């Protein structure tokens, strides 16, 4: 076993991993966020087969590498916080099964749509792609909203509420927020990959998405401050935490400005910053818990949900070896497929 530095002690390791799974989640939301957004826009913006193919092929080489971030986030949660995994997944049973259906549909839609000879067949998979993306984005938001506002957990850590409890207005609004956020993200990405008339229409879609997103963002923020007390407890104790939402608001504003100025890459980075700060906000709202319960005595705390020190250490070694490689070849692949999307003989 490697010698642990004073940073990685038995006491600190669960929090190191709390940070790391936060990073995995951020990586996932930023990367898959734009391709889910492209899926949502697919329902509205493209007008003909060429435009649809351009959309699908803009994310063709990238989407499944992006989704691996989710798989790895899930794997890391399972490994490093088995009790959080075992609490959240059955609690969100119906939502997560629907999420799976959505992810399956959008994945195979991209593969199958181009192989359909009939127009109807292609349209069917187009709709599958769009609805799958929309539903996935929505469900992520709903789950996030519920984790913040608190789940009904019993002594054993099992969920005792019903599906309808999860569909209360606050989490539903969070779902809408994520849909709009990803749509905006996807529109900015598409703007970078397209040219001509289609790009113009995407630019307008980006503006509309930003406006709608900003409105819902405002609503969710006020709602959280006003009636989700658990989310703001930490902020009362540590006022410095207010810097995070301040940064978030700045990023949202900057994204809008860049969208109007058509600095697409800068807009993409600002929106990525906005997504990252939302994950940090979520973490700050939950800390020291991983999952909030409606009864605070049943909260699932980071330290209690964590695996043994040995497993956390092994995991750290695995990530230490693996992650640099992942970052290197992710960069190579994004570099290889840089520039405007072209339709080639090997495209979808």
């Amino acid at each position: 076993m490697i010698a642990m530095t004073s940073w990685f002690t038995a006491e600190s390791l669960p929090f190191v991993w709390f940070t790391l799974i936060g990073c995995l989640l951020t990586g996932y939301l930023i990367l898959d966020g734009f391709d889910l957004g492209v899926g949502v826009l697919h329902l509205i913006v493209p007008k003909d087969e060429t435009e649809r193919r351009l959309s699908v092929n803009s994310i063709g080489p990238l989407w499944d590498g992006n989704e691996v971030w989710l798989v790895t986030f899930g794997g890391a949660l399972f490994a490093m916080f088995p009790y959080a995994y075992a609490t959240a997944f059955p609690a969100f049973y119906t939502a997560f099964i629907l999420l799976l259906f959505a992810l399956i549909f959008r994945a195979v839609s991209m593969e199958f749509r181009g192989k359909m000879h009939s127009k109807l067949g292609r349209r069917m998979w187009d709709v599958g792609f769009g609805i799958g993306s929309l539903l996935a984005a929505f469900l992520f938001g709903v789950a996030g909203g519920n984790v913040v506002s608190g789940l009904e957990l019993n002594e054993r850590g099992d969920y005792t509420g019903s599906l309808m409890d999860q569909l209360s207005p606050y989490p539903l609004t969070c779902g809408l927020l994520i849909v709009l956020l990803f749509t905006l993200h996807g529109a900015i990405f598409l703007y970078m990959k397209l040219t001509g008339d289609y790009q113009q229409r995407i630019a307008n879609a980006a503006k509309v998405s930003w406006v709608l997103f900003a409105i819902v963002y405002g609503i969710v923020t006020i709602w959280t401050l006003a009636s989700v007390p658990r989310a703001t407890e930490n902020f009362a104790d540590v006022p410095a935490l207010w810097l995070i939402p301040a940064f978030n608001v700045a990023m949202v504003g900057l994204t809008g400005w860049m969208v109007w100025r058509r600095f697409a890459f800068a807009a993409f980075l600002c929106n990525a910053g906005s997504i990252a700060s939302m994950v940090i906000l979520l973490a700050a709202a939950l800390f020291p818990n991983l999952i909030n319960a409606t009864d605070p005595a049943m909260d699932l705390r980071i330290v209690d949900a964590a695996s043994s020190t040995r497993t956390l250490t092994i995991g750290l070694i695995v990530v230490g070896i693996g992650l640099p490689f992942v970052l290197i070849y992710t960069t190579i692949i994004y570099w290889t497929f840089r520039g405007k999307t072209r339709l080639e003989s090997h495209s979808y």
Partner: protein
Amino acid sequence: MELFAALDTVLLSRLQFALTIMFHYLFPPLTIGLGVVLVYLGLRYVMTGDRLFRDAQKFWTKIYALNFAMGVSTGIVMEFEFGTNWSVYSEFVGDVFGSALAAEGIFAFFLESGFLAVLVFGWDRVGPKMHLFSTMMVSLGSIFSAVWIVAANSWQQTPAGHHIVPVYRRGEPWVVDGELMMRAEITDFWAMVFNPTTVIRLTHTLTGAFIVGGSLVASVGAWYLLKNRHIEFARRSLNGGLIVMTIGAFTAAATGHLQAKITYAYQPAKMAAYEGHFETGPGHLTVFGIPDVKNETVRYDLSIPRAYSFLLKEDLNAEIVGLDRFAPEDRPPIWIPFVTYRVMVGIGTYLIVLSIVAVVFRLRNKLYTHRPLLFLFVITVFLSLIANHGGWVACEVGRQPWIVHPPLQWTGGEPGVGDVVVDETGVVQYDETQGLRTTDAVSKAISGEQVLGSLIGFGLIYGLLFIVWITVLHQKIQKGPDISEDADTSSASVEDLLDISSSRVSHSKHMIEPNGGSGA
């Protein structure tokens, strides 16, 4: 609602897991096997410059990509189901099992899916060498993935490198309803990864995957020969596929034999279920029979006397532990393992016979025109897939009633050598704290209604996907490879001419030159 309340979440969750994993398991063997084929074709292209290899690689890449998309999207389901349906299991094994899954994510999935982009979309964007490198990384990723999954699965069968400890919460041992919560914690990572059955199980599983890849290539080649299309491509495909299959079939038999021995050593109840071996004593090898579980016998038993004893212990008279050493609640179901194990072994035997016959025909230069034999090759890919599934189902159902199999003790201390240690009633005693029963592993917070709903959903969606998958696969194979404008006559750069001459040489001598089988 009354009806739904009575629904058994364990049974439904097991059905759902069986459905989703069996559907998923169509694709990993195909991609692992085809991945090696792609590497071989890419390598040959870079080495010889023969366009046919590149065209062939493009053709198989399209089929690979289709299977990969199916594999990824159905694979994510498996990860989710551990949490949604089997949360008690996840709590029990997360500390141990989780690190293998995390390693799979970091080391295998990123590699595979990242370079897949270059493999599928990068033909015109990167050079042939970078393309070959990407192909290798994709193939390596799919094999790494198998390594971690098989290691994790093997740990469930033959746990090692861990201890069982109480769980702490708020600094105190966590007690729910007077019961102390326990979990497995890792003590030795490598002992967990290389637990007693990992290596042999991995070898056997990968061999099975290579056979599937080889038989798909051979099947398509044979189909074109029957249809008199893409002749050169078809011959090379059949030839290469045949070599992989032949090596694979013999390796599968050898590794299968070793796996049977190690299964007997660590899970004798499972082995007894495979063989319908109810009574401890010398074992016969049943070729055909119908197990009669109630009367604890095999009816219409056509068996080779004592062959089972000989295979397991190289001794015709050796005593083999039977199901009678196990309490009824510790016995696996008989029917499913018995039948599926026979399906696997039967198809394996068929593959060996077919390979030998085909190699003989090939050496006499009659393989490419022998229509009945070609037809057999066309259907063999389905049989190979069925054999893969048979083996897996037998292995997993044979593990029941345990989701994590507790270790058992043998007289003399060495697994599989003496007899199992039994209590005064003659029955094996398991240490229940070391294992986990499937019935105890299911999530407590889910209802039968929810699981039934999701099971129906998966059934419908997977049914639809299966139809579309088969249709698209069929279309792609019907369409066939895009063979470049015949290089023999056009595009006459000096290099091309050199390539053509070398490829002509290889055409004329590939009768005797075995040009496949790089991965078996």
